[in-house]
């Protein structure tokens, strides 16, 4: 997770929207969002990020933050700041009734897409050679390099993969949100909150944190709409006081 992911979310959303509305194919939109942000991730990592691995953490934060601005402003320059309407794909229109609850079909499909994405990412991180190299490389990059493994390439692929996931998220989210260049920033902050609540560095924590955050917002929206957003951040503060490592976090991982 880094500060450029908000910008990549926006880029993915616009790339997907463009392909989707041009060729009237939602699947093509997904492909476009993933491919564009993946390639962008490769380029960014090669040109910029790789110079930063040896520099202080604060520099890495600053440069990704700056990149976020550049990405969002580029999108704004190309597509203007006006809202874009992203239609729900025809096969996902209507709604579904589960017990007493009525859900829009598309939102359920999104849940499906998210589950598949999480599974793919989980497999890559924990079950492939690439994931192994990167996890070992974070612990001790010198040893990994001594073994003759090109760790630079592995880090690049992971960075690009992260970018692609952000891009995909941006696109599948866009029929639900109003698409503007600033959409990524708002989502970025919320996902930080989700990570803090769920637990830093914890895969399951991010999911649990997301569910908890969603519940807090929808429940407070019913009883005290003014406080809905505030309640989410107060919950985060409470988690920090009571359980600083997050709900599913492990002590020492932060």
């Amino acid at each position, binding site marked *: 997770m880094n500060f450029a992911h908000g910008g990549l979310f926006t880029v993915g959303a616009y790339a997907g929207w463009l392909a989707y509305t041009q060729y009237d194919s939602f699947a093509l939109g997904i492909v476009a969002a993933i491919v564009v942000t993946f390639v962008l991730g490769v380029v960014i990592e090669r040109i910029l990020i790789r110079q930063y691995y040896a520099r202080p953490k604060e520099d890495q934060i600053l440069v990704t933050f700056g990149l976020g601005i550049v990405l969002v*402003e580029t999108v704004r320059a190309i597509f203007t700041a006006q809202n874009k309407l992203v239609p729900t794909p025809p096969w996902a229109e209507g709604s579904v009734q589960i017990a007493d609850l009525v859900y829009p079909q598309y939102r359920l499909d999104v849940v499906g897409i998210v589950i598949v994405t999480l599974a793919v990412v989980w497999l890559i991180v924990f079950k492939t050679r690439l994931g192994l190299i990167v996890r070992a490389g974070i612990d001790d990059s010198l040893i990994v390099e001594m073994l003759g493994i090109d760790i630079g390439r592995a880090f690049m692929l992971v960075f690009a993969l992260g970018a692609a996931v952000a891009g995909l998220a941006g696109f599948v989210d866009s029929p639900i949100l109003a698409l503007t260049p600033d959409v990524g920033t708002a989502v970025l902050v919320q996902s930080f909150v989700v990570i803090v609540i769920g637990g830093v560095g914890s895969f399951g924590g991010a999911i649990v944190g997301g569910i908890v955050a969603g519940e807090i917002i929808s429940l407070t929206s019913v009883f005290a709409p003014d406080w809905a957003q505030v309640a989410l951040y107060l919950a985060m*503060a409470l988690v920090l006081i009571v359980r600083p490592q997050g709900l599913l976090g492990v002590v020492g991982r932060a």
Partner: protein
Amino acid sequence: MILGPVGDRTGWKVEGATALFLVLFPALLALFGVGTDLGTRILILGLFGIGVDLIFGYTGLLSFGQAAFYGTGGFITANLLIHHNVPNALGALAIGTLGAALAGALVGSLALRQVGIYFAMLTLAFGQLFYFLENSPLRAYTGSENGLPGVPKAIFTAGPWTLDFSSSLGMYVFVAMIYFGGFFIARRIVRSPFGAVLRAIRENPERALAVGHRVPRYKLVAFTIAAAYGGLAGGLLGIFQGYMPPEAFTIDQSGEIIVMTVIGGPGTLIGPLVGAGVWTLLRQGLQNIDVIAGIWKLILGIVFVLLITGFRRGLVGAAIALAGRLRPAR
């Protein structure tokens, strides 16, 4: 004497040069056809940035939530003045600054439990908390997205005498005096033993702790001081504009002050003023050129990325390095 003046051999020259600059600044702006008000705005941001520099440039803490304190100080000051709760602007500013410092202590005590990117994330999130507080539950005091109009100007009366800062130049003088006070205090802070420990924390927090310093307390006090600077600057913004804008609380505001500080040069105190000047004047200049009016922020974003990649110490840092290289040749 082995120590010399630790960390800084400039004596009072920097204060003198800054005072001189503040006197000449409106005339310099006029030379380029820029109004005094823009200078006042730059000083307010420069003051805000001093706080950011204290925690980032000197202590190594990168906070993306400083707008929370800018807004808090601003809205407390504006409310006090609009409802005439305090006799004059200075009293309102003092209370606003104190309120922002309290908010800073509260946020700091939570966010400082993490370091690095997680600290940055937390400050960003707490910044949003304040934004949403301003936006909904507290709208009676903040005017929500409308902000608070009708903030009175700085006029002081004592018996038969009146000191009126409400003209454009008067406002500049008022803000410049407060900026200089803030700058002077910050210089004292960074040259104190307290400031020496802050720099040690920036360089190597683990070792600063290992040699016996209570690092968490130093961080919290530094964070609180930075919040106070933000609050003071926010209060000045409301008085200067006669209107307290809700944008003071936004993420964009938090981000911009970081960008200004980094462009100008972190760890220099004067850097944020330079960065604010570059940012504000470039923005003004670029917006006047038709072709690129819409992409001024993109251009500044690219400049920012290039600067951190190549010129880590910002414009002032680069100037100091250059001066240092020229000196032996003399």
